[in-house]
């Protein structure tokens, strides 16, 4: 009889491949920067990509894996941004790398607390109602920030130390992605995915769904807060209107385009959607039009059978040339 063999829990070769890719991408960017090919403009785009990646991967935790539609992710980002900025401006004396890291963590934790406060009542709702309440939450945060004179109100909060570099943003992207990947491949991640698959069956299998919904929500808020902190320390000035409904939708679009519950897809979609408007800058007034058409096109043809066949073929091709193919047991 053939002996049945399971896949290893973590594939070592794959882990090394990912580490290798992380290092190579960083090395390439650094090399291009020192060669002067990546100027300040491109550097800005790269940092924006990093910020968006953190936001998208964290939102993927709630919308993709947990399957709950939330429209207030920019609200958490705003809390993180303002909390981190406030800390940095108040404690200017702390030497720089530490101050920045502490500021980001404070931003993350504040957003996480907000996530818990909003999550406990909100996650008892489902579907559209949850979407509406989170949408409302985002707007409430924006309005509160607008009315707080101590952090600049509508004029914006100025004079934040501009300490974000590509390196720091990149490090936090890696931390976010690794965290989400490792969490998902554990009993906690399985619980989260099972909730999106079938809430009733998940509860009947002994999963505390309220706890896991709040957990996913809180982690997502934490990373959104960190992204906000990075954003604040990159721009040097933040205003409440940046963190409006449009920002939330922009993040959601990236999650949906990348395929909900897929980290690879989310990363590709984020990079594409962040860079696309910049690439289309030469088309001047048609830029936003092209952006919209591209989005609609992807939505329309994503599930087209012809495209699906192409994707399948591509997948088979990848499997053929995959150097880490599992050897068939004889």
């Amino acid at each position, binding site marked *: 009889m053939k002996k*049945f063999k*399971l*896949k290893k829990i973590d594939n070592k070769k794959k882990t090394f491949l990912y580490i290798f890719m992380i290092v190579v991408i960083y090395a390439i960017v650094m090399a291009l920067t020192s060669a002067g090919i990546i100027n300040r403009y491109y550097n800005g785009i790269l940092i924006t990509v990093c910020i968006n990646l953190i936001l998208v991967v964290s939102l993927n935790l709630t919308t993709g894996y947990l399957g709950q539609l939330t429209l207030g992710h920019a609200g958490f980002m705003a809390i993180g941004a303002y909390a981190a900025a406030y800390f940095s401006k108040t404690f200017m004396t702390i030497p720089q790398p530490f101050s920045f890291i502490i500021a980001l963590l404070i931003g993350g934790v504040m957003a996480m607390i907000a996530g818990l406060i909003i999550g406990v009542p909100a996650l008892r709702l489902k579907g559209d109602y949850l979407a509406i309440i989170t949408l409302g939450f985002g707007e409430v945060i924006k309005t509160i920030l607008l009315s707080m004179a101590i952090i600049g109100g509508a004029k914006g909060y100025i004079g934040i130390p501009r300490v974000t570099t590509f390196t720091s943003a990149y490090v936090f992207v890696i931390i976010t992605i690794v965290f989400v990947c490792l*969490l998902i491949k554990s*009993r*906690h991640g*399985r619980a989260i995915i099972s909730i999106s698959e*079938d809430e009733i*069956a998940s509860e*009947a299998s002994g999963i505390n769904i309220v706890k896991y919904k709040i957990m996913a929500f809180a982690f997502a808020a934490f990373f959104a807060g960190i992204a906000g902190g990075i954003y604040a320390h990159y721009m040097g000035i933040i205003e409440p209107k940046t963190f409006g409904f449009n920002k939330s939708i922009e993040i959601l679009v990236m999650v949906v385009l990348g395929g909900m519950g897929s980290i690879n897809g989310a990363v590709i979609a984020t990079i594409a959607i962040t860079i696309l408007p910049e690439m289309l800058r030469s088309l001047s007034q048609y830029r936003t039009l092209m952006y919209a058409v591209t989005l609609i096109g992807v939505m329309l043809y994503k599930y087209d059978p012809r495209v699906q066949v192409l994707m399948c073929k591509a997948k088979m091709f990848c499997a053929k040339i995959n150097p880490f193919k599992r050897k068939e047991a004889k």
Partner: protein
Amino acid sequence: MNVLKISNLGINFGGLRAVDNFNLEINEGELVGLIGPNGAGKTTVFNMLTGVYAPTDGTLQLGGVKYNGKTTYQIANMGIARTFQNIRLFKNCTVLDNVKVAMHDTYRYSVIDAVFRLPKYYRLEKQMNEKAIELLKIFSLEDYAESKASSLPYGKQRELEIVRALATNPKLLLLDEPAAGMNPNETKELMNTIKKVRDEFKIAILLIEHDMKLVKGICEKITVLNYGCVLAEGDVETVLSNKSVISAYLGD
């Protein structure tokens, strides 16, 4: 010693008395059938037993402990597992993951163990995998372990649901129409497996079923529900020859 004791269970949906004065005792290792015409309230009883509906009156006891008012997941962790009338698998997860979700409470490690991949994570995941494969072998599903649950044929999906229920380590297993949509051969196979499960795991089983062949074949005791009331109960032969039971099924 009885595993489950239900006394005077009843529930109202608005003005409708869906289940009234329902009593049942299930002893260790017993196979009990719950039958009745459509709309008699059988699934409602299941939903009350698992905390999906809160009963209006009556008490529920598992192993002598009253568990009214507990939430569904707490009841599941106390030792009542169930399957559903319309299959509810985690369709996009692998067969193995479906089973491992149900082991959530048995093999515990924290988020920190998971995110930093501490030795405890690997140890428990390995144990989980081994246990899951062991359970899948009962229904010889182990070859499907890494395929998507939705890709299984219908009969296998039903069996996987039973495996998932067993993975929670139950004292009492509730099966809601396990043979629905199966052909006679599959039903026969299922009957043997249900018996085997009962003998091997020494658990009590309560099942809802319309297939009388299955009920006659494996149940030691049956209870008949009609319009929310118990019509008859006792051993299979007496109940099935009871006049009021026949008239409830076939009309006068």
